């Protein structure tokens, strides 16, 4: 019993390396967080976040590669949406939120003093967990971002192209004046995706974009992601392990346990993470042995 209590700060790594199962769970295993190769779009350093007194993220550090799909997985409430919302500064809108640590977008500090969140959000788009089309026509939904950003080109063409890419065009092309709310849940989500890509962002954050979709629409969205990733950096939150495996290049596993809320447990190339997880908690989760 007594040998499991170890307060020396440097010891965690050593003990884990010794292979003892009684290691404290607070820290990631060495080697469990792999730095991706190639161009990095977003760098997260020691990010911690509190909602009022309640901590939601603890010391998250990871590098997200450009023009790749990165999946965030983990049990409900572990902080995936919270992390995603940090990247385009949507958490600014919640008055109780306090953030520590830093986030860089191509080397620029996203929370720097002269950074405008509106500019950040124009470049880093977002699709929300729940479809939230505006109570306007389908056309206006897609055109909204372009309009407020002062888009000068051919709006009709942009709307059509965006709807096509979101695999929605065929279903709505005769009815662009119809309210976005008159669509089915899955169509609404694809409309929200079309709306996000019409803005021509560099990065698209997707918070469980397929949770309201049937398998066919889900496959369409996954195809779309593979298509989009040629030009865009995509970060997707998903509860669907197969989806993460199918669609993503890198996967991050997050977890909230008794000691640490919202920690990054393991991060690396998707195939490695799913076939040879380095942390036992990752293995437990992906094999469905969790909680």
């Amino acid at each position, binding site marked *: 019993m007594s040998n499991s209590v170890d307060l020396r700060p440097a010891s965690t790594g050593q003990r884990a390396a010794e292979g003892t199962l009684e290691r404290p769970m607070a820290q990631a295993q060495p080697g469990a967080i792999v730095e991706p190769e190639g161009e990095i779009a977003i760098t997260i350093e020691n990010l911690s976040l509190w909602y009022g007194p309640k901590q939601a993220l603890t010391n998250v550090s990871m590098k997200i590669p450009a023009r790749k799909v990165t999946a965030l997985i983990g049990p409900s409430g572990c902080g995936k949406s919270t992390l995603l919302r940090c990247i*385009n500064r*949507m958490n600014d*809108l919640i*008055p109780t939120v306090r953030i520590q640590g830093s986030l860089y977008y191509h080397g620029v500090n996203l929370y720097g003093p002269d950074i405008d969140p*509106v*500019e950040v*959000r*124009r*470049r880093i*788009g*977002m699709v*929300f967990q*729940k479809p*939230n*089309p*505006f*109570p306007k026509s389908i056309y206006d939904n897609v055109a*909204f*971002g372009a309009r*407020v*950003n002062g888009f000068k080109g051919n709006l009709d063409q942009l709307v059509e192209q965006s709807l096509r890419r979101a695999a929605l065009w065929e279903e709505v092309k005769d009815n662009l004046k119809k*309210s976005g*709310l008159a669509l089915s849940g899955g169509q609404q989500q694809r409309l*929200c995706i079309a*709306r*996000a890509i019409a*803005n021509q962002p560099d990065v698209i954050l997707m918070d469980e974009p397929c949770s309201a979709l049937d398998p066919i629409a889900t496959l369409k969205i996954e195809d779309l992601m593979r298509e989009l990733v040629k030009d865009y950096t995509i970060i997707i939150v998903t509860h669907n392990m197969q989806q993460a495996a199918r669609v993503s290049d890198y996967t991050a596993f997050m977890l909230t346990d008794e000691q640490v809320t919202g920690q990054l447990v393991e991060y690396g190339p998707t195939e490695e993470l799913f076939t040879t997880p380095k942390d036992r908690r990752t293995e437990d989760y992906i094999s469905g042995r969790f909680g």
Partner: protein
Amino acid sequence: MSAASETGTPFTLKATGHVARRQRLSRMSRWVLFSATMLAVFVLVYLMQDVVRLGWERLSWDFLTSYPSRRPLDAGLRSSLLGWLWLMGAVIVMAVPLAIGSALFIEEFAPRNWFTELVRLNISNLAGVPSIIYGILGLAVFVRGFDLWGITLFPSLGPTILAGALTLTLMILPMTIIASVEAIRQVPPSIRDGSLALGATQWQTVWHHILPGAIPGIMTGVILAIARAAGETAALIMIGAFAFIAFDNTSLMQSFTTVPIQIYNWTTLPQEGFRVNAAAGIIVLMTLVVGLNLIAVVIREKFRRSW
């Protein structure tokens, strides 16, 4: 068991026991609510038929276009009608944008701290202040002008339409602001998030999404406020609108009177003919208020949507 055995199934889907009791209560509640509504409708219909029976005969083009007079059959609503229209126009033009602006600031832009809460609480309290108090305030500040240590903070306007409109604007602002704040809160946060996530500024989000979404609720508040201002008498008498006006109002800086005051005036006079005039005046006033509110309803329905 017994009910079940009749059909041969081991259960029954007819309402029995608990379900039957809850259903009886549910049906009863419907009748109680219906009676409450009917009580209000009955009182209204009774009053209306009383007024219409008395005043209907007196309604004529002459009645609308004659100045007030000492002889009941010569007296008409001309000056009070014009004064009322000027007054209501000025009140709507001042109060509605001010109320929507204040509500948007409180809900969307103001920092959430104790001071904002205090302001909000005070606005709610102001909505309950009797109109006569606003009348006294209007008399002291707008009619007579407001000096503090020799500095004129507000010039004396005299008993003019402008002074009356400012007074009524103050009076209906609290309820309009509260209704607008509530309407703005009804707009789902996901719409706000969606707009901001597309790189819209806060103002663009307010202008394109929050305001259109809140307008139906705001209009409901505006309808109630207009109805209150339209029938207001006490505050206006206080600021000196109980006047004999025998000319047509052409500007905001003239003395005036209004339809409700004219009606009140007639009811204080002894001759039977003036009672008939008062009833006819009430019919005209009701028609005007319904007309104003119809405009608000049309605006509301145009923006009505479901989320």
